[in-house]
């Protein structure tokens, strides 16, 4: 080979968004690498894995490789490209691992939903059952979710803007949360025992999924603004600084909301998730373990009361303690889930080789059971690790970002995903009682997907702020004229 073209080494890579390595090495304090190429590489890797998974499903199910599949695949790749470009333009310094994790999970989810479609077609079509494939709808939902994702990245150039509308978000979130519970059942029907949907003819949404994020923004904003209040110690008890009784208000409020979800909407999973998130936000904001202790006590009280009072809670607990006691009726779902996981064993039955038609709700709440059956423990562990990496990366962004609101919101969002996964997979594998919530990005369902893509956009925004070298414009101080200001007592830092 000939000698390299002079100057070629120094030329900035065409893909790197802006920064020149030469300049970076010579002048300190200039822009760090954006790592967008890393993200592109990881995205391509995820796309490759998903494609292989799809081909395996088709091969194992003896499907011809129809154009339908090609369109599904192309649509998926197209969506990934759009997402990548959006991040490049609007959040160039965002964490490069988060989006590939999401792409992998969402892609695997699409493949599994398609795979369950094939199984349901096998069962339903010969018996003239009414059935329509879910995968194309999920692709459509993914597209809509990405539009939302891009919109959030574009519109929300600084996450701190959100703090300003904290109360608005809180109000809207609360309404969204309680709406299905209080509306009459022709618009808010009870599906599978839970009253959490709003039905508009052809499609229905779960406002609770969005309320989760809205309320998290509210709580983060609220806690940041009132932080000092909560750190004020009350009495000391058993080595814990107890908060003052009147400061317990927000926690009690959250607890009431959680209990309300459980009673009026019969949605144990969301109730647990919501309460857990509030507790963590409170703990992070105040740095007081006492809040966690009080919260756990409150939770235990609520759980015991709920168990005593409500039949549906008792059934869940009984199914958890011994699903085989009523294996063909009430315990059927969890028993089938365990059978699927056990039959899959260490390495699984192979994609397309399992029996997802045996598990009710296979493509929503129990999609991880199908993954465990077909990809085995190894596959399930891989999925868990992807979630872990995703949540840890989110947490890293929260640690690195400079403002407290960003820290609180980022940490809360990251924890929300991890905790949700704990609830859903813990339920499916009988670690905890089965509660019935979706696995983020994997499960079929538009609301869950839309809400979680918004969550990703927020995490990317926060991580972008953490790594971005540009002097982030301070939020314009909304200070009244100096004459109208209160006199502020300045304490000496402890």
């Amino acid at each position: 080979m000939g000698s390299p073209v002079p100057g070629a080494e120094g030329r900035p890579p065409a893909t790197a968004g802006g920064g020149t390595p030469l300049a970076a090495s010579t002048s300190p304090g200039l822009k760090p690498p954006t790592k967008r190429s890393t993200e592109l590489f990881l995205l391509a890797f995820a796309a490759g894995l998903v494609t292989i998974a799809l081909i395996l499903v088709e091969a194992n199910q003896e499907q011809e490789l129809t154009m339908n599949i090609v369109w599904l695949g192309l649509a998926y790749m197209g969506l990934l490209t759009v997402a990548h470009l959006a991040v490049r333009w609007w959040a160039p310094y965002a964490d490069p691992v988060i989006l590939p994790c999401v792409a992998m999970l969402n892609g695997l989810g699409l493949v599994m939903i398609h795979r369950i479609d094939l199984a349901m077609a096998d069962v339903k079509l010969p018996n003239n059952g009414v059935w329509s494939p879910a995968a194309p709808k999920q692709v459509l939902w993914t597209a809509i979710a990405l539009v939302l994702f891009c919109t959030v990245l574009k519109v929300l150039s600084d996450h701190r803007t959100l703090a300003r509308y904290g109360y608005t978000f809180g109000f809207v979130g609360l309404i969204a949360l309680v709406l299905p519970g209080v509306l009459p059942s022709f618009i808010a029907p009870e599906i599978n025992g839970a009253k959490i949907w709003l039905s508009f003819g052809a499609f229905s949404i779960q406002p609770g999924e969005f309320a989760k994020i809205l309320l998290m923004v509210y709580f983060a904003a609220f806690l940041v603004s009132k932080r000092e209040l909560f750190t004020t110690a009350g009495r000391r008890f058993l080595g814990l600084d107890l908060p003052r009784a009147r400061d317990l208000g927000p926690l009690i409020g959250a607890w009431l909301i959680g209990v309300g979800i459980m009673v009026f909407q019969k949605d144990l999973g969301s109730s647990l998730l919501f309460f857990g998130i509030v507790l963590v936000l409170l703990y992070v904001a105040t740095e007081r373990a006492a809040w966690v202790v009080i919260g756990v006590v409150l939770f235990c009280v609520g759980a015991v009361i709920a168990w005593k009072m409500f039949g549906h809670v008792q059934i869940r607990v009984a199914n958890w303690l011994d699903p085989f006691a009523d294996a063909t009726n009430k315990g059927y779902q969890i028993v089938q889930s365990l059978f699927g996981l056990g039959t899959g064993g260490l390495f699984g039955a192979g994609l397309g080789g399992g029996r997802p038609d045996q598990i009710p709700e296979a493509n929503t709440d129990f999609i991880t059971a199908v993954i465990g059956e077909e990809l085995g423990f190894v596959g399930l562990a891989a999925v868990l690790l992807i979630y872990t990496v995703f949540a840890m990366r989110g947490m890293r962004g929260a640690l690195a970002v400079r403002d407290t609101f960003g820290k609180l919101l980022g940490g809360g969002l990251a924890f929300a995903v991890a905790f949700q996964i704990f609830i859903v997979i813990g339920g499916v594998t009988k670690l905890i009682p089965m509660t019935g919530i979706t696995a983020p990005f994997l499960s079929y369902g538009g609301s869950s997907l839309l809400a979680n893509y918004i969550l990703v956009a927020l995490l990317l925004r926060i991580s972008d702020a953490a790594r971005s070298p540009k002097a982030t414009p301070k939020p314009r101080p909304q200070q009244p004229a100096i004459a109208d200001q209160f006199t502020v007592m300045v304490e000496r830092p402890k």
Partner: protein
Amino acid sequence: MNTPLRRVGVAMMVMMLLLLANATYVQVIKADDYRKDPLNRRVVLDQYSRERGQIIAAGGEPLATVEKTTDRLRYLRKYAGPAFAPVTGYFSTVYGAGGLERAEDDLLNGSDDRLFTRRVSDLITGRDPKGGSLQLTVDAALQQAAFDSLQGVTGAVVAIRPQTGEIIAMASTPSFDPNSLASHDVDEQQTAWKGLTAEDAGLPLLNRSVAGLYAPGSTFKLVVAAAALAEGKTKDSEVDGRPVITLPGTDTTLPNFNDSNCGNGVTASLQEALAKSCNTAFAVLADQLGKDKLTKQAAKFGFDDSDLKVPLSVETSTLGPMKDRPSIYQTGIGQRDVLVTPLENAVIAATIANGGVRMRPHLIHKVLAPDLQVISEDKGDDLADAMEVEHARALRDMMVESEKNTFQGGRLSGVTIASKTGTAERGEDVKATKPNAWYVAFAPAEKPEIAIAVIVENGGDVGLAATGGRVAAPIGRSVIGAYLGSR
């Protein structure tokens, strides 16, 4: 604020570790329990959706095949019908399998080791694994004839080719339609199963040929005669001929049929005693031979073989404990505790027909790979020299005489049959309980081609008046006629 955030991160890791640990417990430690749980239909469904091998008759007639379906089990099992049900058995998604479907399940579903290399190549080439097929020794036309001849009665017919041990017919009534149990409609299966297992259904799922144990009655005299011949008696040797004897040490009498004389009323030749089926003669003869010699001779004919599989499991024919002399007397005429399967009685006839050499009875002629290549072929092998050749010939001659003394219903012209009938009394009150009727035979006597055993339970269609000759013999002759006439 970073410290609590880090702690939350640690909490997240702990949650994930908990999930992983629990998944390990479910998917690795408990996996086998879950996989094998009877409520777990996954493994079963997998097996059922594989293309199961065929069962075909000796002439290639399909007895059990598969038909492609559009439902998730993918293949529907199809059977030739009730005549063949005792042989093929059934294959139900709910109630398991019976008959050859059960005995050769591994081969038919493709998991048998004999198919291993083919399985490996299927794995590599990506072909669907298929089960192996079975070509039986059963003659389809003869099986149908045997089944037809049993219509209206409860009983069984077993026919064996004496030189090879091939079972050419194995009929049992009442029978059933295995198609109803193989249905993919669970309700249809349930209805069929309930009907078949109902109290008054008469045990249609029981293959009486191999699973029915009956007192052999006078057909057991063949075994006693064989033992006597082995001890130096000839067909002309004189044996007891009294019409009635008293069992030693008791007041119980043991009469001949209708209290008739045997020979001159004091003694009779062994040949006449067998031809007239004299109870007294064989009871005394059994006593003279003793327990050990009887047991030994019976074992040579295949008694007490608890491992016999054809490959259907065969109930063990036994002589019973024979604790005292009266019981040996009664054993000598095939009563007391003697129990045989129709298959065993056919084997005795076949062994005599084959010059005293007992061949291993079997139902499967060839095991075929999914592509119908022959994996193995059963050419038949001898299990024991049960009798000397000349003794077997003598016994054959005696059986020919016996046939002449039997009710001649359904007699075949131009064929010499060697036979022995039996009328086995049952229950406490023998006069009021309908007897089981036996007929064991082989033909042609000079050069035997078929040996059969026929059992008709409860006196067949004549009730209390039934004897082996009147009820079972015509059935046996019609089966022999159907076989010899077809060649």
